[in-house]
């Protein structure tokens, strides 16, 4: 795939830079320059660590100073008070930072955008206040001075060159971890966090994804903290736990290119030298100057080049579909039979039983005592006027809502209170009425998110997704970005992503609304084809022509209650149904 090419440029650049940096100390004799390099590497590693949750995951943490400080303090306290070598301290500190990050993360992960930022900022402040207050442990605002006793055991060395290589390795390790993540299912999950519902529908737990990323980010930040403390030999709470520190990490990521592998490091290479030189030139006389310049840059970059330097340099090459596969007939016949289904169930048993399900929203009962039995291999149409509770019922079955009462069994197994991602993993896939594609991915990548439900291997998921797209006649569009799609394509992409999870039961929510008659006809034959491959279908649809011709049975909801059920012919004669749709007077005639 071209996407490996996309990384090649960056990879060459990375190797070349590393080689250059490895031999640089041969020529760099000036201790101040060495210091600048050490700080640059340190911040490059730290900003890259921040980028895991802040950039890849889009969760704007403004509290990373806390994790950094926990790293600094833990190893220092363990060494000064208990004589534990910093080699062990770095591990303990990192672990502690990780655990604390989960403690703060879990309450805050459901907060969005600025509020996650706010909560983490408040949290960082709490940690700082505690560090100042609990003098017995932390020495209060005086902090610690680490006695300089060089030795391998003490992780203290007689020359800057040692620290140069230590921080260089730290930076490389964090970048390699970022690289590895960016090319994995986990990386894609992080990228998908902005559409958290769609993510859950792909069998990926949003909270768990955030927690992993936060933990990893905090662990690496904590390690960076210990290394920093061992280098500067002096730590005090106002410097270490400062908000400015957290913001510097964000700034570097933004300047370099937020959410990219090399961006944060590039940001550090631009900004760290600026701040060190300013500090040297103006020293104490112009305190704050480097932060004024930082702030100006942050505002400038955020306003005028929000994609960052890396994106400016490296334009993503447009992957253009292979022309040989892009020629498609308007009415494609889906003759290619593919085993889409995960594991076929024995015939004759209902695949899904819903018993007495009820959902209240405050005083409003959206769904009341509904029973539903879906037979294996059928297409069941779910219709009803607007506000009848159809989508609510879908949300209950797929785990996006927890029912007030009642039970749901899938293949004889109780799934009533399962989380959405667990349910999709069991083989119930769904589409969304309001299409919710992952906006920053291509069509193919969107479908891959679905395939990750059963296959964590990137290349295999990609191949499988290409097969699905081929099956849906979308191969020519696989490299398009979401913004370039028509509504029909987006609706079909919903279907593709759901199919890619290898469902046995497919819930389809108004996939034909807004399509023209030709497109409807096409979709009808497509759905039939999917059913013929062993996928049971429950569909909400307002396009009557489609419902009547496709459904084996139809269930009608009105005001949250099931009012009728039967085959299309029976249902269309049912007076209750006519009343619900057309009003009282038509029912009488």
């Amino acid at each position, binding site marked *: 795939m071209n996407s490996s090419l996309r990384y090649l440029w960056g990879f060459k650049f990375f190797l070349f830079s590393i080689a250059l940096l490895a031999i640089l100390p041969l020529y760099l004799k000036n201790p101040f320059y060495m210091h600048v390099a050490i700080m640059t590497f340190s911040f490059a590693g730290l900003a890259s660590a921040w980028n895991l949750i802040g950039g890849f995951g889009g969760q704007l943490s403004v509290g990373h100073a806390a994790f950094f400080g926990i790293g600094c303090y833990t190893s220092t306290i363990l060494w000064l008070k208990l004589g534990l070598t910093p080699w062990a301290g770095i591990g303990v500190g990192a672990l502690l930072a990780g655990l604390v990050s989960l403690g703060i993360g879990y309450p805050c992960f459901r907060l969005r*955008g600025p509020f996650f*930022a706010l909560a983490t900022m408040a949290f960082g402040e709490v940690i700082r206040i*505690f560090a100042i207050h609990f003098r017995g442990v932390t020495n209060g605002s005086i902090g610690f001075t680490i006695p300089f006793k060089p030795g391998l055991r003490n992780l203290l060395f007689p020359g800057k060159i040692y620290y140069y290589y230590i921080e260089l390795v730290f930076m490389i390790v964090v970048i390699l971890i970022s690289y590895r993540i960016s090319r994995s299912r986990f990386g894609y999950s992080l990228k998908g966090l902005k559409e958290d519902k769609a993510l859950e529908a792909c069998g990926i737990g949003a909270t768990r994804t955030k927690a992993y990323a936060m933990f990893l980010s905090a662990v690496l930040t904590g390690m960076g903290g210990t290394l920093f403390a061992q280098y500067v030999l002096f730590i005090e709470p106002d410097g270490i736990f400062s908000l400015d520190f957290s913001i510097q990490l964000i700034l570097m990521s933004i300047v370099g290119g937020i959410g990219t592998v090399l961006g944060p490091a590039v940001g550090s290479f631009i900004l760290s030298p600026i701040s060190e030189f300013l500090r040297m030139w103006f020293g104490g006389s112009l305190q*704050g*100057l480097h932060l004024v310049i930082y702030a100006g840059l*942050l505002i400038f970059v955020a*306003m005028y080049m929000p994609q960052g330097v890396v994106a400016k340099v490296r334009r993503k090459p447009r992957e253009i579909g292979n022309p040989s596969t892009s020629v498609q007939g308007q009415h494609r016949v889906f003759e290619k039979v593919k085993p889409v289904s995960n594991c076929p169930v024995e015939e004759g048993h209902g695949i899904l039983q819903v018993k007495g399900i009820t959902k209240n929203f405050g005083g409003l009962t959206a769904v009341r005592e509904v029973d539903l039995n879906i037979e294996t291999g059928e297409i069941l149409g779910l219709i009803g006027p607007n506000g009848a509770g159809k989508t609510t019922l879908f949300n209950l079955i797929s785990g996006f809502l927890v029912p007030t009462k009642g039970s749901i069994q899938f293949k004889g197994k109780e799934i009533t209170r399962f989380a959405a991602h667990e349910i999709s993993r069991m083989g119930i896939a769904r589409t969304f009425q309001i299409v919710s594609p992952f906006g920053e991915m291509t069509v193919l990548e969107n479908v891959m998110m679905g395939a990750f439900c059963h296959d964590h291997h990137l290349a295999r998921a990609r191949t499988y997704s290409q097969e699905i797209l081929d099956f849906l006649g979308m191969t020519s569009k696989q490299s398009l970005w979401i913004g370039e799609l028509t509504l029909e394509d987006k609706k079909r992409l919903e279907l593709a992503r759901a199919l890619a999870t290898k469902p046995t039961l497919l819930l389809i929510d108004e996939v034909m609304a807004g399509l023209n008659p030709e497109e409807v006809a096409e979709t009808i034959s497509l759905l039939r084809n999917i059913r013929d491959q062993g996928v049971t279908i429950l569909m909400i649809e307002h396009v009557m022509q489609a419902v009547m011709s496709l459904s084996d049975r139809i269930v009608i909801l009105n005001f949250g209650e099931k009012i009728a059920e039967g085959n299309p012919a029976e249902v269309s004669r049912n007076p209750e149904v006519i009343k619900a749709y057309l009003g009282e007077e038509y029912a009488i005639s």
Partner: protein
Amino acid sequence: MKTIIQIVVSGLLLGGIYSLLSIGLTLIFGVIRIVNFAHGDFLMLSMYGAYWLFTLWGVSPFLSVLIITPIFFLLGLAVQRVFVKPVLNASSLIQVSILLGLSIGLQNLCLLFWKGDYRGINLAISTSVIKVGFVDLGVPRLIAFIAALVISVLIYLFLKKTYLGKAIRATVQDRNAAELMGVDINRIYRLTFGLGIGCVGLAGPLLMPIYSVFPTVGLYFVLTAFVIVVLGGLGNVAGAFFGALIIGLVESFSGFFIAPALKEGVYFIIFILLLLVKPAGLFGQLGSEEIGAR
């Protein structure tokens, strides 16, 4: 018992001070849907304003408040135009970055000019106390409290009674619908930002007799104000006022019963608990969908 009443009274007075800051913040959030991370730094600026006016020309803060408030209203209009308007539709990452940038920039500019020293002014009134029964009321705090009360009522009436106020409330409820009804959204945004910063301009001089000013003083206040705004319900002016009183009480009680140095810790923990349990705030539903409480 006497101690308890004294704690309650000082808590309420403290709450009054906080509410001056929180009302502007909640207004800006409710209307523009942007979290003003630089809010506290404008407070810091207005405190410096009052400090220099007093130190250089001997203008009493109670007089300079009349000059500083309108200036800050205008400053708010300008800041909105330059920094906020261009990124109204940008991602929250960009918005947060710009406002944080503004915050750090202002802090460090002041650090650059006036160093990190704590600067306070000495007025006779600073230490004067009115005795009501057995309860001591610090005069500057009482003045700030009354000012906060008056401002809250005025803003409340403005929102309820005037056309502009109604237009602002309509914008809070539905941006697009308000625009379709002929409300000039950009004007509303400008005005709201001006009002919010104007409130801060009012607060700064009134705080000068009580607190010292230093470059990061805003951070201390703004974090408190964030807690209050969430507590009171985002965009809810009355909620911000009562939320401020509650946080004032919490602070004075925890300062007395736990430890003064940990009072911020206490209400940040309340903050996090609140976000967990009742993210829509105590007094309002507004904006809850924005923070992720579905």
